[in-house]
């Protein structure tokens, strides 16, 4: 088990390192900040001074080494525009996005699992039909569009909830619903499909032959065996929702990670972009690692095999 975890960890570190190189190079490809960020009247001497100040005059490998060391120390430079440390900006905004995405995903998981199990257990019943409609629509409607519809209905027409902003639990409801629907749809369908397959298995029949109560058959036996792909899918939805949150944050004026990226890219604030990407990569790599480990914990065959 330990060997498995270590191997995955090593893999993850390699990925982070590769991505750090990639973002470093990409950002430098955009152009010379001395030209992009300084007014056109600046002299060459000024530009050279600017470059030296930012450490841009040194050879690229040296810059990368400095970047890497800085990353390890937690120092990723300061925002060109705000002067604040890029890393802390990224982390703060990430925090508020995580609140949004985390709650959405939790809601999606609960709703999706419940719907999927209910559909599988009462196949082709009215609840199954309703759930299928819910899921199919949920996967066809972009979250930001759903968000607009929700705003139209709940904020503009009935005035129950605010149209945007950040602060109280009321501000959370609409964005969470918009985001969660998409994921809940996918989770519900996957759960239903997996449960149906599992419910046909011999060991489920055996569980019934044993005379176990139905909730044990469904809960302990069926769901546990159907769970792994659902877990992996939910984890992958995390990335999807962070991406989807970009548009949602714009709609609701939510000060999140996605809107940070949009602003930083639009204003060519490279240090912030770098910091944001690295933070993002670390986050996703950690999640994938956690999923791999969880797989091994739940399914004993994996940890004995690899």
């Amino acid at each position: 088990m330990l060997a498995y975890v270590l191997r995955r960890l090593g893999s993850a570190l390699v990925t982070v390192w590769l991505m750090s190189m990639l973002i470093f190079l990409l950002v430098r490809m955009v152009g010379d900040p001395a030209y992009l960020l300084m007014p056109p009247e600046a002299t060459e001497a000024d530009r050279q001074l600017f470059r030296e100040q930012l450490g841009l005059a040194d050879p690229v490998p040296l810059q990368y080494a400095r970047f890497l060391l800085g990353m390890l120390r937690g120092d990723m430079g300061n925002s060109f525009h705000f002067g604040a440390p890029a890393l802390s900006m990224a982390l703060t905004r990430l925090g508020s996005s995580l609140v949004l995405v985390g709650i959405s995903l939790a809601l999606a998981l609960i709703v999706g699992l419940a719907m999927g199990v209910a559909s599988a257990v009462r196949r082709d019943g009215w609840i199954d039909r309703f759930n299928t409609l819910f899921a199919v629509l949920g996967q066809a409607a972009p979250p930001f569009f759903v968000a607009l519809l929700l705003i139209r209905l709940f904020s503009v027409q009935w005035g129950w909830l605010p149209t945007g902003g950040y602060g109280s639990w009321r501000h959370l409801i609409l964005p969470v619903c918009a985001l969660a629907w998409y994921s809940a749809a996918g989770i519900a369908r996957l759960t239903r499909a997996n449960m149906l397959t599992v419910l046909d298995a011999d060991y489920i029949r055996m569980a019934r032959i044993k005379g176990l109560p139905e909730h044990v058959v469904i809960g302990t036996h069926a769901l546990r065996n159907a769970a792994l792909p659902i877990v992996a899918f939910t984890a992958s939805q995390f990335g999807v929702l962070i991406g989807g949150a970009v548009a949602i944050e714009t709609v609701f004026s939510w000060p999140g990670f996605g809107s940070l990226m949009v602003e930083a890219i639009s204003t060519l604030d490279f240090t912030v972009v770098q910091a944001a990407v690295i933070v993002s990569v670390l986050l996703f790599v950690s999640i994938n690692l956690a999923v791999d480990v969880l797989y091994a914990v739940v399914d004993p065959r994996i940890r004995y095999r690899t």
Partner: protein
Amino acid sequence: MKARFVVLGGVLVAIVAASVFAPWLSPVDPNAIDLSATFQSPGWHHWFGTDQMGRDVFTRTLYGGRISLSIAFCAVLLAGFFGAIAGLLSAYLGGAFDATLMRVVDAQYALPPVFLAMLIVGICGPSVTNIVIVVTLANWGRFARIIRAEALSLRERDFILIARLAGAKPLYVVWRHLLPNVRNTFAVLLTLDIGLVIFMEAALSFVGLGVQPPDPSWGGMIADGRNYLDTAWWLSALPGLVLIATVLCSNRIGESLQRGEGAAR
């Protein structure tokens, strides 16, 4: 079952055809401004109404469809093609090639596609070509992974072994033997991917990093209508509904194929 397949296919084909034949269906310039006819609700002259600059929303939806759909089809085909070849080679060759490729795909999964897309568009500028490139890059890994898994399970089968014993070169085995057998999975993936890519492009356009105004795109139009939700609901709603219909049909068709109900087997 088959009837449903036909209906879905029909709707999808209708939308695609409408976009392709836009100039004939609606011989009006989508960008033509008419300030005397702003905010007209849907009616006889303007089937989908007009927007804040008096532009006909129906025409813009059709032309937007042209752009959004062509980006989607190109990106899906490119990502699919390169991803599938990569996945097949990876499965077949194994070893260092496989390990490296999977690391690269993992790296691609380390960043949400939208961020990657935003980065590249931010660096290289938002042109339609760039959007296609970006969406392809964000997407190929999916194909590579899934096709690789399929191919891996096929690789152990006898007919591959026989080909190798006969001395066939790797690329030949991949092309002649592996490829036809993953065709089904591939077709399903392609169809299911269309919806994802349309979403991606719409999201990019919505935040302003996709198709630039005044060119219409579904995402862009939804964004434009944001501020007029209560007064001119049709600006966002109608292009949005067309988008939903397109994605819904292609998703359902993909799922039917997955279940083996497709007519074209």
